[in-house]
C-alpha cells in the first residue's frame, strides 16, 4: 500500500445521507400528521427504504462479492422463516 494521498469519493455517501434525512423527517411526519393504514404502511415502507439506502448507499453492499451478499440474504431468509412460521401459529388460533 502506497502512502500517496488520493481523492476520497464522498458524493455517493452524502447523497444517501440526504435521502436518509428526508426519510427520517417523513417518518416523523407520519407519526403526528397521518393515521391508520397510511401511517402504518408508510412507516414500514420508509423503514425498508432507509434500510436499503443505508445498505447500498453507505455500506456499499452492491459492490460486495457475491458471497457477502449471500450471507446478508441468508439472514433475511431465516428471519422470514421465523416470522412466517410463528405467525402461522398466531394467525390461525381459534380463539
Amino acid at each position, binding site marked *: 500500500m502506497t502512502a500517496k494521498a488520493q481523492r476520497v469519493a464522498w458524493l455517493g455517501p452524502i447523497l444517501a445521507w440526504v435521502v436518509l434525512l428526508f426519510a427520517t423527517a417523513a417518518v416523523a411526519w407520519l407519526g403526528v400528521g397521518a393515521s391508520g393504514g397510511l401511517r402504518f404502511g408508510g412507516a414500514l415502507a420508509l423503514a425498508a427504504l432507509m434500510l436499503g439506502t443505508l445498505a447500498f448507499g453507505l455500506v456499499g453492499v452492491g459492490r460486495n462479492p457475491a458471497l457477502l451478499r449471500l450471507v446478508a440474504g441468508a439472514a433475511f431468509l*431465516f428471519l422470514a422463516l421465523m416470522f412466517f412460521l410463528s405467525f402461522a401459529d398466531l394467525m390461525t388460533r381459534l380463539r
Partner: protein
Amino acid sequence: MTDAAAPIDHAEPRSRSVIAGSYLDSEGGGLSEWLLTTDHKRIALLYAVMITAFFFIGGAAATLMRLELVSPAGHFLTDDEYNRVFTLHGIIMVWFFLVPLIPATFGNFFLPLMIGAPDVAFPKLNLMSWYLTLIGGLCVLAALLMGGVDTGWTFYPPYSTAFSNSNVALAVLGVIIAGFGTIATGVNFVATTHTLRAPGMTWFRLPLFVWTVYATSLVMILATPVLAITLMLVAADRLFGLPVFDGFRGGDPLLFQHLFWFYSHPAVYIMILPAMGVVTEIITCFARRRVFGYAMMVYAVLAIAIIGFAVWGHHMFVSGQSVFANLVFSFLSFIVAVPSAIKVFNWTATLYRGQITFEAPMLYALGFVGLFTIGGLTGLFLASVPIDIQVTGTYFVVAHFHYVMVGGAVSAYFAGLHFWWPKITGRLYSEAWARFAAVLMFFGFNFTFFPQFILGYLGMPRRYHTYPAEFQPWNVMSSTGAVVLAAAYALPLFYLVWSCFYGKISPADPWHAKGLEWRTSSPPPKRNFLRTPVVTEEPYDYHDPGAAPQAEARPVDAARLAAVAPRPIGGAHG
C-alpha cells in the same frame, strides 16, 4: 495391519523428544502458555478438559436422578432438590457439554488440519470463545452454589420469570455468555473454511467432517443469537420487571417457546451434525472404502441444517399452538427426517464390499449408527401429532433425545476420541480396553434408555421424582443400566490417561487413513504442516474408483514419509 493393538503392558519410557517440534512441546511459559495460547490445537485441548469437567458434573446430577427414581416415593431428595438437580443436568449437558462437544474439540483441532491450514482464521477470537464458554459455565456453577436453579433447562415463563424462587438470572446470564462464545466459534470456522483451504482443496474434496462442521457453524451463527435475545428478555423480566411474556398483561408465553425452540431445535443439529461427520470419517477408514454417495451426503448435511430451522413447532403440539401450525410443523418434521435416513443408508452402504476391521473407533461408530437409527426413528413418533400428544412431556421424549444426543453425539465423540487420539497425543491406547468400553457403552446405553420409551408411552411424566408404583420395574431397569453406562464412560478416562504416559508412540498415520490430518506428524507440529500441502486427489481415496479395496493399505509408506516432511499430497493414483 495397524499398529494399534498395543498390549497394556507394552510400556515404553516416556520420550517426547522423539517427536520434534510438536504443538505439545513446552515453550517455557508454564501454565500461561496454555491459557494464553492461540494455537487451535491447544485451544481444542482446553475445550476438551473443560467439557470433561462439565460432563462429570452433569453426570453426577444424572446419577442422583437415577438413584432417586429407583423408588416410587423418592427417598433421597426433596421436591426442590430434585428440581434443581435435573435443571443443572440439563443446562450443563446441553450448553456446556453437548454444544461444544465435537465442534469445539475435534472441530478446532482438525478443521484446519483437514483443509491444510496453519490455524483458524481468527486465532485470538478462538481463544476468546473458550474463555466465554468457561465464564458462562462458571456463572452457571455459581448459580448452583448459591442455591441452584429450578426451572428446567428450557426456562419456560411465566415460571422462570415470575414464580421461580431461584438464581434464574445468573444461570441465564451464563448461557448467554457461552452463547456468544458459540457464535464466535461458528464465525471462525466458516471464515476458515472459506479462506484457508490449501491449494487444490476444492469444496467437493473436503472431508465430510469439514462439511458437517461448516454446516454446524452456520447453525450456530444463525440460531444462537435468537437464544441470546430470548433469554435476555427473561432476564429483563427477572431483573427489571419487563413483562414481555406475561399472559396476565397481554403477553404470550408461547412467544417465548417459539423463540426458544427456534434456537433449541437447530441446537440438536449443532450436536448431531458434527457427530455424523466424525462417524463418516471412521466408517470409511475402517471399511477401506470410499464414502458411498459423497455428494448426497453433503446435500443431506446442508438440507438438515436448513430444514432443521423450520421444524421447531413439533415441541409445541400440546402447548396451545394452533392446529394449522401443528400440521405444518408435523409435515416439515417428517421431511427433515429424510436426509437423516439417507445418511444412515449411506453409512451402511459404505460397508458393502469393503475390507472391514473392527478397532475401537469403528465399534463406537457402528454403535452410533445403531443408536442414532433408533433415535431417528422414534423422532417419527414425535412428528405424528396424535402420538406426540400422548408422549410429549413424558419419558418417551427423554429417551428419544438421549438416543440422539447421548447415544448419537457422545458415542461419536468417543469414536472420534479413539480415532484421533494417536494424532492428538502421539500415543496409542490399549485396544482391548477400548473395545471393551465401546461394547459396554452400547449395551449400557440401551439398558438405560430403552425402558424409558415404554415408560413414556405408559404416560410417566418427566421431571417427576415421585411416581405411581406400577412404573417402578422399568425405572429400576433404567437405573441399573445407568450404572453400567457410568462405568463405560469412566473407563476411557483411565486407559486414555494411562496411554499419555505409558502408551506406545504412535506413527503419523496408525490407521493408514486418508485426509490431510494424517499427512503430518503425530502429534502435529506447531503450524500443522512443514510445507503447505497441495491436494490433487479426491476425498477418501482408499481405492481406485473402478476397483475393489485391497486388504493391504496403500500407499504403504506414505505415513512414515509424511512424518518427516509432509509430501505434497497426491500424484500417486493407483
